[in-house]
């Protein structure tokens, strides 16, 4: 099992190297935007990976409330942290891209706003985990995770209708539709490698959490056995 995972890590590193090569050297330079467009290969896969992590977080939280097992709580914590990281990458690469392309850092477009709200929700989730003490953390966090996940589709719906009088010039271009096959290929390599990186990070974080729990359990066992403290 452990060897399998190490093999997976090695594979992921290889993938990452290859996809970076694809993004920076193989994919052609975009005509209107220039090299800035290459952010695309990091921006979109990050968003996708963040989405996967948040889904895992939601499922793990539901399972935790149902089964009350520490494993799913550890998974929820791990996925929230990793998802937050990728979401942050999206929120950093997006404006960096937007500034030269649109001339502004930010606009209240549906996708942008949803990403921001998602990020806010998971920051509050992680803060709650930090600020609550002892045995109640898991339950409170799981409840919040469910709230957050239920909220996201509502945010998305509402944002799409938000201030329609100022249609934002965002995704109108639609590179997606007319994407160059070479670009598409580079894009998919990146998508794959980012997903793998996300999985690796989540598993590592999860194992760290479990190890910590194990250490606690060992200490606890020692405390139980030892005659006095």
């Amino acid at each position, binding site marked *: 099992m452990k060897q399998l995972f190490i093999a997976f890590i090695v594979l992921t590193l290889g993938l990452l190297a290859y996809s970076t090569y694809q993004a920076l050297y193989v994919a052609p330079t975009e005509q209107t935007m220039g090299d800035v467009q290459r952010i695309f290969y990091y921006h979109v896969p990050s968003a996708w990976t963040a989405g996967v992590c948040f889904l895992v977080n939601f499922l793990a939280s539901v399972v935790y409330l149902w089964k009350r097992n520490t494993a799913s709580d550890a998974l929820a914590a791990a996925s929230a942290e990793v998802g937050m990281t990728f979401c942050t990458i999206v929120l950093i690469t997006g404006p960096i891209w937007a500034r030269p392309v649109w001339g502004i850092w930010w606009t209240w477009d549906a996708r942008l706003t949803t990403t921001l709200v998602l990020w806010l929700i998971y920051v509050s989730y992680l803060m709650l985990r930090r600020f609550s003490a002892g*045995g109640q953390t898991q339950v409170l966090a799981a409840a919040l995770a469910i709230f957050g996940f239920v909220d996201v589709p509502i945010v998305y719906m509402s944002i799409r209708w938000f201030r329609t009088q100022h249609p934002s010039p965002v995704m109108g271009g639609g590179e997606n539709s007319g994407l160059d096959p070479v670009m598409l290929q580079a894009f998919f390599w990146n998508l794959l490698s980012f997903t793998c990186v996300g999985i690796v990070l989540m598993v590592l974080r999860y194992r760290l959490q479990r190890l910590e729990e194990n250490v*606690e359990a060992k*200490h*606890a066992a020692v*405390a*139980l056995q030892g005659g006095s*403290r």
Partner: protein
Amino acid sequence: MTGTTDSPAEPVIVLEQLVKFFGRFAALRDISDRFAAGRLYVVLGDNGAGKSTLLRVVAGLMEPSQGSVTLLGTRKLREVAHRVGYMGHAPLLYDELSGMENLRYFAGLYGLHNDSVGSNAMQMVGLDPELLRRVGQYSQGMRQRLSLARAVLHDPDLILLDEPFSNVDVHSARAMAAVLGHVRDNGKTIVVVTHQAALIEGVADDFVHMSAGQIVRREAVLRRAVTTNSGAEAVR
């Protein structure tokens, strides 16, 4: 389980390998014990011995980390919640309401909508049900008495009290101890945590000594007819 008093009836509290962790600190360490019906148990022990934790676990306010609590024959504590009374460290009362208003509300939580429930409880602990003052203006001793009234309001079979005498003057404490004695005589089971054993030894049946998260010793008391002369009494 040294010196456990055996009783014919089924025990009211059965603790099985009870463990409670706070982080990596074990506040309760593998406690297995049983408490018989109709007795008044006094739990003694140093600060941090785990007395309050034990009481909270038994009352269902905390989940044990390992092991189980069987109360009045069931492990589903919520099912017997109406037969258990709990008085915590803090008074568990609303400062802004009067004594009767407090009791009326808490009686409602137990499905008791009769005012006599509250006034009986107040009379039992020696408070005047007509008292209009808000609890915030009560003196410490009155507040503790009212808190006791709240805990026994619904005539529970099992009563758990956490340091009911702290900051209470000697007179009030003795009065409260006497009330507990009466309640016990009516067949209820009472568990009292306290540092002032002298105040309650007159009515106690068993002393339970806790230390470092374990019950280290239990001893039954020969019921005496008169209250012992404690040191505090001698001084006054």
